[in-house]
């Protein structure tokens, strides 16, 4: 069934392929993204007093140029990765840059540096890891490395915004969970490919339900344990949710067994219910989500301020620099979407969501075009990871779901998050490069 569908995908993607070969689409889209970035910086330069004298225009110009240089380099080496993802990322990270500049030029400058570093890492990823397949050989190393990276902050970590998930390296702080999520996808992809047959069929049966043996499902339960570990010791609800969601998505993609998903969700619900009863901070998150107003001066302050920002925005927004998103604590990281909603209105907020939708659409398309299961699983895992993270934080700050603090990919302030997501982008592009190059 799987091999049967391959031919159709080859035919349907050949048209895009001709274009991706010369990367014309990427160039044209970047040409569209450039005025957006520059206009944003120009508005800041003209209309926002605190952003003046901080070389807003130069930073904007440099960012645009950096993205173009990546494009030109790829064109030169004949890189065949997806042509849409880099321009989408350019718009998302430029939006983040403009808003960080507007909120606090110092954050803007640092974010600018991290975008440059991120693009450098993206180039390295597209160069060094272009034959990504070898990555599947080291799955237990990932598991070990990931576990260590997650456990370290429990002992040596610093608490930021309620989550104890940061490692302090003096010069900069490092949020290991942002990188572990990539290892997670790689590990799961390798592991699921190896054990797919057993997991799908099951080795023993209880009544009519066939279930796999302990050697197959123990690692999966371990994954659930890791999520809970995050939840309990690092108080990082958001990351736990993303890990677990990605895990379920990949298990479903590999096995097509809804029973796993239901079983997983059941485990998650049990974990969530237990932590609701055990931990005060989980209870208060839920209470605030249900009705933040009684906590307007205390624990609900941040969410209420986010509501005010979004409510003040209306359809068109107050326009850049004219609102008061600074009233929201942590607006530069988890709550940056509320700032966008205030100053760019519903149109701006919806545009960001639509960009993530296109990102996810391209990611799904990439994994549909892969020729083996490891690549397909990895691509869909990365896509699910990024999409889930964007969905969870946007839902959190708008009150659709209880708030769990994670960064909005490419937009929120933070080097770890930005660099990790650029690596993710590079791996996704490498997968699409392979599929396109093999034709």
């Amino acid at each position, binding site marked *: *069934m*799987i091999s049967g*569908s391959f031919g159709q*995908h080859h035919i349907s993607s050949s048209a895009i392929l001709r274009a991706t070969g010369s990367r014309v689409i990427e160039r044209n889209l970047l040409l569209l993204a450039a005025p957006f970035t520059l206009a944003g910086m120009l508005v800041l330069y*003209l*209309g926002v*007093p605190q952003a003046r004298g901080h070389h807003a225009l130069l930073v904007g110009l440099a960012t645009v140029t950096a993205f173009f240089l990546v494009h030109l380099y790829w064109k030169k080496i004949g890189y065949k990765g997806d042509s849409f993802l880099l321009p989408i990322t350019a718009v998302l990270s430029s939006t983040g840059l403009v808003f960080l500049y507007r909120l606090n030029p110092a954050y803007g400058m640092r974010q600018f540096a991290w975008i440059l570093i991120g693009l450098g890492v993206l180039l390295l990823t597209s160069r060094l890891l272009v034959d990504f397949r070898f990555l599947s050989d080291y799955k237990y190393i990932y598991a070990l490395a990931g576990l260590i990276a997650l456990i370290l902050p429990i002992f040596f970590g610093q608490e930021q915004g309620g989550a104890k998930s940061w490692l302090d390296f003096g010069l900069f702080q490092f949020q290991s969970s942002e990188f572990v999520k990539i290892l997670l996808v790689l590990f799961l992809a390798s592991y699921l490919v190896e054990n797919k047959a057993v997991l799908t069929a099951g080795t023993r049966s209880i009544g009519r339900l066939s279930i796999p043996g302990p050697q197959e499902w123990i690692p999966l339960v371990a994954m659930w344990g890791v999520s809970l570990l995050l939840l309990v010791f690092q108080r990082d609800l958001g990351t736990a949710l993303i890990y677990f969601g990605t895990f379920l*998505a990949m298990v*479903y*993609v*590999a096995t*097509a067994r809804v029973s796993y998903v239901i079983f997983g969700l059941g485990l998650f619900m049990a974990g969530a219910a237990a932590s609701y009863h055990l931990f005060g901070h989980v209870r208060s998150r839920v209470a605030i989500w249900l009705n933040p107003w009684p906590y*307007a001066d205390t624990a609900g302050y941040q969410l*209420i301020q986010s*509501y*005010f920002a*979004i*409510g*003040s*925005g*209306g*359809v068109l927004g107050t*326009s850049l*620099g*004219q*609102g*008061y998103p600074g*009233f929201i604590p942590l607006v530069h990281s988890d709550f940056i979407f509320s700032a966008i*909603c205030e100053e760019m*209105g*519903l149109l701006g*907020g*919806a545009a960001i*969501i*639509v960009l*993530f*939708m296109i990102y*996810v*659409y391209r*990611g*799904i398309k990439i*994994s*549909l075009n892969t020729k083996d*299961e490891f690549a*397909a*699983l990895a691509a*869909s895992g990365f*896509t*699910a990871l990024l*999409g*889930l993270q*964007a*969905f969870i934080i*946007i*839902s959190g700050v*708008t*009150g*659709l779901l209880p708030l769990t603090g994670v960064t909005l990919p490419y937009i929120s302030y933070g080097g770890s998050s930005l660099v990790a997501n650029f690596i993710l982008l590079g791996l996704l592009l490498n997968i699409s490069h392979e599929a396109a190059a093999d034709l």
Partner: protein
Amino acid sequence: MKNNILKLGILMLGLFSILVVYLSYLQVIRGPAIAANTYNRRFQEYEAQVLRGTIYDAKGAVLARTEFTDGRGRRVYPRGRETAHLIGYISELYGRAGLESTYDRYLLGREGADRIRNYVNKILDRQQSGGDMVLTLDANLQELAVDLLGGRRGAVVLIDPRSGAVLVMASSPSFDPNRLDNIWSSLVADEAAPLINRATQGAYPPGSTFKVVTAAGALAEKPDLAAKTFSCPGFIEVDGYKLMDTDVHGEVDIKKALAVSCNTTFAQLGVDLGPDGFEKAVKAFGLTQDPGLGVPARPGTIAPTDKLHPTELASSAIGQGEVLVSPLQMALVAAAVANKGVIMRPYLVDTVKDSMGEVILQTSGRKWLTATSPQIAGIIKEGMLEAVRYGTATAAAVPGMQVAGKTGSAQNPHGASHAWFIGFAPASQPSLAVAVILENAGSGGAVAAPIAGRLIAAAAAKGY
């Protein structure tokens, strides 16, 4: 596997679609209500940036202006407690009140051309400003009225009956709006209720000043009463209930009954009017309506018609019973008689400008109600002139000017009677209508009438 990937993709795009729908609902439908919440600090921030418009009195004296210190605006009220009830206040802690609150959008430059102008100003980092307001109030007369009240509980209202322009509206005790945040807790706790604008929110029995309304109602029902005489034995019995008069007034016509404030006559007229006739007379003078000055006002109240049995009618007709009205409303009663039966809609704000000085709102005299006919107004005016000439209101007399007036000494459960006076001047061409009340201060003729006289004299000297 590809099929599963496709399903995953559809699920994720579905989740994002839900998010877009929810965001639209949040921002467009619920947004305005959320943003209007008092916890939202954006409004105060806006306040601090905008050069809020200045409020002037009729002669150009500043009543409220914004001073900038360290880049933040602070509101200053040069006339302090004298105008506090009208101008109101803006406080980050205790909200907004008075004309400051009612005309917020204009003063902050959020109306008309100022909306666009201030948007551009903000982008260009220039000072944003709001529009100025000019009131009908005369700050000097207001000061005099406050002095005449002398810290006693009471209120004074002076209006131009020809236009409805409010020249004086004083309420005592008052508060200093410049120090509101510091004194708020004591203001709220004060049993004298200094935050209440007694001129518009007061609920007083009007006493004998109300006989003007009863007279107008009775004359409208039976015009021949004008030629009739009434006999006053010093009391009246209604349904076996004996109502004592202040004196034995003997044979009086309706003018003299007004002049000497004969309770017997007006109690009988009230009983004769009946519940519907009495209510009609009250409503004709707009006593149960809020005239819409832009400051909080309490519409007057009377007993419901099904409870207006003869004894209640007898006492309501002389401004006792369940009749409760504000000084503003009684000033409008005087204005109705002065203006040949027509009440002009009272107003406090003459003009509202935008930040460039262009006039956005301009109030002019507009007819509000026809309280009574010119003939009836003429008869009552005669009675009120006689009251000042030889009756209960002689203390309101002003040398060289014909003043018409009616006193009241309203009994109440709180102690001595409320001293009332309503009147107008000059009688030939009335340009001033006044109402004075002093709570629990004794007789209207002795306490309230002299205040009215001095205020009228001062206003006339200023050319009003």
